[in-house]
């Protein structure tokens, strides 16, 4: 079987539950499938394994709240494909996680860096909001900001010119998450939030993934695989047959 035929057959990974859907159909993936598929797609798009884990985490976290994490991750991976790390990772200074020159940050890189710095002075919000960005596909920031809020046991608020999202200390989000999902890039401020009124948390079922999102993520994920060879095939099974 050629690699191309094999690809069309939509192969499956028994250990990481990837590429799970027969070709050409929309599908509802489990959270685990979304996380593993997005991890592999991010790796296939060139992220390091550790950042690809963060990408899988972020996409699945959003999907668990009914938000289109997988689709927006695919958009981000497509956007950043081939761009060097120093163009998409933040420059960290007290009060500011910014892009270099006129660049635009990767939300996975920015989010991971914010989490790593959550208890360091650079991420202090004591006296002024943190300035973030510009960052592309900013919805993907929310899982990381929620982790920061949880770790600090402090509600946070992300504000940008067209909306705001509250991230509570107990891991919930409220506000304009859907609007944030429609933003392609923005500069935002992150500040400590004093809950004035109870807000309705954003919740939802795992989203249906359109076939084009699945195909795009599967294509990237397949970049992590090695084309089959006779040598590899020969070593993979039992030495004897299975009709005993």
């Amino acid at each position, binding site marked *: 079987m050629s690699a191309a035929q094999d690809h069309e057959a939509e192969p499956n990974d028994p250990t990481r539950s990837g590429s799970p859907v027969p070709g050409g159909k929309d599908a509802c993936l489990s959270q685990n499938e979304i996380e593993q598929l997005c991890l592999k797609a991010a790796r296939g798009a060139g992220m*390091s*394994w550790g950042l690809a884990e963060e990408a899988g985490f972020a996409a699945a976290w959003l999907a668990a709240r009914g938000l289109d994490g997988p689709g927006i991750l695919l958009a981000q991976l497509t956007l950043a494909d081939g761009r060097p790390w120093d163009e998409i990772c933040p420059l960290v200074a007290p009060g500011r996680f910014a892009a270099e020159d006129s660049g635009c940050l990767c939300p996975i890189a920015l989010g991971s860096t914010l989490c790593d710095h959550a208890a360091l002075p650079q991420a202090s919000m004591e006296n002024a909001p943190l300035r973030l960005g510009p960052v592309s596909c900013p919805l993907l920031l929310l899982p990381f900001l929620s982790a920061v809020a949880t770790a600090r046991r402090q509600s946070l608020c992300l504000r940008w010119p067209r909306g705001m999202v509250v991230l509570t200390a107990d891991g919930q989000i409220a506000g304009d998450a859907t609007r944030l999902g429609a933003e392609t890039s923005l500069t935002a401020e992150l500040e400590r939030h004093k809950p004035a009124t109870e807000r309705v948390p954003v919740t939802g079922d795992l989203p249906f993934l359109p076939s084009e999102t699945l195909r795009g993520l599967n294509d990237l994920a397949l970049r992590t695989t090695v084309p089959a060879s006779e040598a590899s095939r020969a070593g993979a099974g039992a030495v004897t047959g299975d009709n005993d």
Partner: protein
Amino acid sequence: MDCASLNPIPEAAAFRRPPSQVMRLDRMGSAHPTRLSFLRSLLRRVSDEGWTFDRPVWDIDGRGVGRAVYRAAGPVRTYCLVAFAHDLPAEMRSDRVIATAWDATFTLFDGEPDADDLDRLQANVPLQEAGRISARELSLSRANRSVRLFAHVIERLAAGMQPDPAEVEAVGYLMRTTAVYGSGKFGAADRANIADRPELSAPFQAEMLSVWLTRQFTVDIVEHLAATRGGASAVRLDPAIRRMLGVGNSTGLGMAPFLVRHPVLLNNWMMAREEALARVRAQHAARPDAVAAFQAALAEATENARQWHSTHPIQIAKLDALRRDLTCLADRIANWPEPQSNHPWDRLWRWGEAELSLEGQEALLALMLEPHGDLVDGLSDCMTADEKAWFRLDGTITVADFSASLAQHYDWALAIDFDQPDKAARFWYVSEEKLEPRLGNRFEEDGASLEQPLCIARLAHELHTALKDWPGDASLAAFLLAHPEHRFMARRAQILGHHPYAEVRDNLIAAEILPIDLMRCKLAFFGASRFDPRSDKWVRISLFQGMPYPSDMTPGGWA
């Protein structure tokens, strides 16, 4: 809940084996099932809670094709195994993940399926990976017949005779599963959605329940086919022979990376087992009833070792050593414990460490746990893991402190010279073909640039080297911002700081690596017996052999 703070026997900690001894591949590859194994905890629960079992649907024709439903009713919830039986031509029978058809296919349904559910499942479950299941299902699996024994048993039963016990003993199962998927795979329910149910919170309980009900199906279908063929002269399986039959399992390399990919879970499994051994060793005296139960368990293990066969040279040598060890052990305990001896279990253990092979030592561990359910069974509750809780890195630690911690916990890895070709001879990868995990030869095959991050020792080595170029007072957060390529390993290293048994302390890309060692360890935690390698990366095992059937728990609940 913090298991450590609840420990009723804190003095046992002094008897615990260190990770440097426990987490070596050769010892992990000698692991034996224990009473903490997952199928044992399932059987304890269904017995203690009085679960009932029956078979509300049996719609299988004379060729053995159709569907059946097995119902397991617990105190709060009910689960059903939905089984589809197929007529599989011999040329399509393959245990590999690249197979497309099987003798039987299964799913564990959450609740009781109605006719619409069954039709939906019938359109998907027989396709396995090419179909889709839903959040109402907890597992997806398939099984192939042991062609020889399956035919023999039907032939004998149809003729009014029992199967030849030697044939039953030689194979040990009528069907073997070739994959049992859970945890959200192919659309199934996510583990997070069911992990708070007491009956499913321990690892792999849904999968174990599915396999146990599958074992019932395998004997039901041979009796059905024998009755079809033999009519009035057919007989049912003798209960003693029936009990000799387990469910086989055939497993390839895909299972091997699991323990490496789940360090927190691995730690919790190992920690529970090691704590159990330590509690037994910490006993000041050996109770007479425990000594008697230990002797009975040894007799059973000796019989099991007699029946345990393999054609693989490595396993043949290990089985020879095990049989010799069990004989030595029987001699050793002939007049044991000596009167007034202090800590007799610990003395026995130390004798075993000095005198027995690794196979024998790990068998002794299992035997020593056997009479001590009151001391150790509660540890089953500590074997699950909240992996998400350990995902975030602590970026505040300084490069100097982090590097020192790495040097302490990964000393075994930093001592390896990866410039020597045999220390980096292999690489783990995922094949484009069916996304099957495979192990390649770095210097002979293409694809090493697509290596999976299972080469932990080398990753630790590289991280340690990179840290040397950084000022000691810099934060790990700053280091990772400049070096995203080390994020994966930095996360693991921080996990190991809190989970001493999280890491396999061997080089997983060395020329001499035996993937079956990883598989044996995981399978022993499942409760697998009769470990029988078919190559250095492919094994068959048996589950539930010698244990009761669901129908034994509910006499009269069966057709």
